[in-house]
């Protein structure tokens, strides 16, 4: 019962953050701020979605004692970890590429990177 509640709660949190991330992606003015929305919030949301699956697997394992649910949880953990690492690297790479290709941050109050010679 508690497990079901936790699963649903995690799913709700995850989808909510994903929704907010997409809204940010659509709403923010330039690529860097959009990246703030997507990188952080969709990663967070997806990790929470994965967390719900992990909790589900754990609860099923406790309920049934079937070893395959351990596999489910472990693989989901790995997927979530891989997601976090690759997302961070990917968004850094895009941000760097965007800055090098000459896209300046909109409404910026300060841009220290532009002062550094390439």
């Amino acid at each position, binding site marked *: 019962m508690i497990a079901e509640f936790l699963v649903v709660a995690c799913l709700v949190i995850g989808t909510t953050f994903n929704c907010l991330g997409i809204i940010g992606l659509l709403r923010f003015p330039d690529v860097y701020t959009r990246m703030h929305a997507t990188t952080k919030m969709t990663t967070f949301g997806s990790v929470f979605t994965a967390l719900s699956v992990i909790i589900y697997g754990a609860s099923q394992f406790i309920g049934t004692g079937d*070893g395959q649910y351990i596999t489910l949880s472990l693989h989901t953990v790995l997927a979530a970890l891989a997601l976090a690492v690759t997302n961070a690297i990917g968004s850094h790479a895009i941000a*760097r590429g965007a800055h090098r290709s000459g896209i300046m941050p909109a409404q910026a109050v300060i841009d220290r990177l532009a002062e550094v010679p390439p």
Partner: protein
Amino acid sequence: MRMSKIVRTGACILYPLIIIFGLYVVVHGHLTPGGGFQGGAVIATAAALVLVAFSHEEIAGMVRKAFLSAQESLGLLLFIGAGILGLLAGAPFFANILANSGLLFGLPVPPGPNPGDLNTAGVIPVMNIAVGVEVWGGLAIILVYLFSATGGERT
């Protein structure tokens, strides 16, 4: 040119992880989704990751064309050899003579849904490994060749 330090470090860390995962996909081809081709493609993507993170002059020592091409041919020879194995045993080409034989990969499987065991499926895992080796070499060498064409000024 090489990408930034963060990407390079990340690529270095992810490279063995992707390779071991690809090998897992290869050898578990008869139990889980995947198999030789999928695993080989995963590993080749790891090579693509390293190639993109470093400059390709820097990576030239790590991925060599001759080595990869030999690897590809070796995989194919292994594959066709696994087929000829049936021919040698008196059965037709590509007969699965190792299955249910009790030898390497020769355990029988219980019928119906079961957790599965690595040591089953006869000649299939051998072929999986062969195809994995071949696809790894093949796709990686395609990338290396295409990278060698990217010199010169941009348009």
